[in-house]
């Protein structure tokens, strides 16, 4: 084995280094894949953080509540929510911080879930 590695080191140095590098990168991604799937398997980690790039419709899908509830919580006409507008754009438009929008939405989501599903234990 050692003779083989020595032989390859002399004749195929580049390929040998590339092989070892590819092997360690495989290990790295395998480990990351396992940790991220373990993390995601926990239902507590599935509620995503509301970010500026999300649209009200996206947040509604993410939190599994009707779009009208999200729209109403941030003062948008629930009947005709503006299409293709992100929360960041809405926060600028309404002169509110993203954090304010975030907490307004979360509050509405929590109250909607209690009325939709009844109190959870």
């Amino acid at each position, binding site marked *: 084995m050692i003779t*083989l590695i020595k*032989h*390859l080191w002399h*004749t*195929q140095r580049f*390929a*040998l280094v*590339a*092989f070892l590098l*590819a*092997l360690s*990168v*495989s290990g*790295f*991604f*395998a480990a*990351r*894949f396992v940790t*991220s*799937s373990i993390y*995601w398997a926990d239902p507590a980690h*599935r509620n*995503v953080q509301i*970010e*500026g*790039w999300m*649209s009200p*419709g*996206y*947040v*509604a*899908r*993410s*939190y*599994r509540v009707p*779009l009208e509830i999200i729209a109403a919580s941030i003062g948008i006409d629930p009947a005709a929510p503006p*299409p*293709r*507008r*992100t929360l*960041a*754009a809405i926060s600028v438009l309404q002169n509110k911080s993203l954090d304010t929008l975030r907490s307004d939405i979360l509050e509405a989501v929590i109250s909607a879930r209690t009325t939709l599903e009844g109190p959870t234990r």
Partner: protein
Amino acid sequence: MSDWLLALIPQYGLILIFVATLASCLALPIPASLIMLSAGGFAASGEMELTQTAFAAFAGAIIGDISGFAIGRRGAKWLQRKGGRLSQAQELVRRRGALGVFLSRWLISPLGPYVNFAAGAAGLAWPKFVLPAFMGELLWVGLYVGLGYGFSGQVIEIARLLGNASGFLAALALTIGLGFWLRHTAHAGARNLQKTP
């Protein structure tokens, strides 16, 4: 994170998706997978049209592939003038290239752009490139836009999972390929040693 990029999706929609998949097929560092997943998510929330989204992504990908392949062909002429030794690799690509092209579209997609250049440089025939590229991109776009649609609202998490999975598979494919190469040269070396006592 590339939040600002994601914020552009509902706004610039189809153009952005088209440009992203095109650029990613030319090895430009644009997170096309994440963009397709998010676009699928936005399609699910009714802010984009699903078939248009998928078509834009597919058109960008196939044009990007063909461009990369054409660049590889031009590059090969330049390399040959410089006296590069391509013959062995060329032989392998001509025999097994189509499968490599197909798999590097979707399963080991991080290798996709380099396979485009390499396949072009090794002189793979046009039909042997275009057909598997077409099928593979169909799968890639369908998979990512579809997963974004199905798991809308969780695209960042899905993107992380898929990114690690495809990174692992691509690195593994490289490891196996280089392993075979090393084994092959080790055997060849041993044969040579036997011949010359």
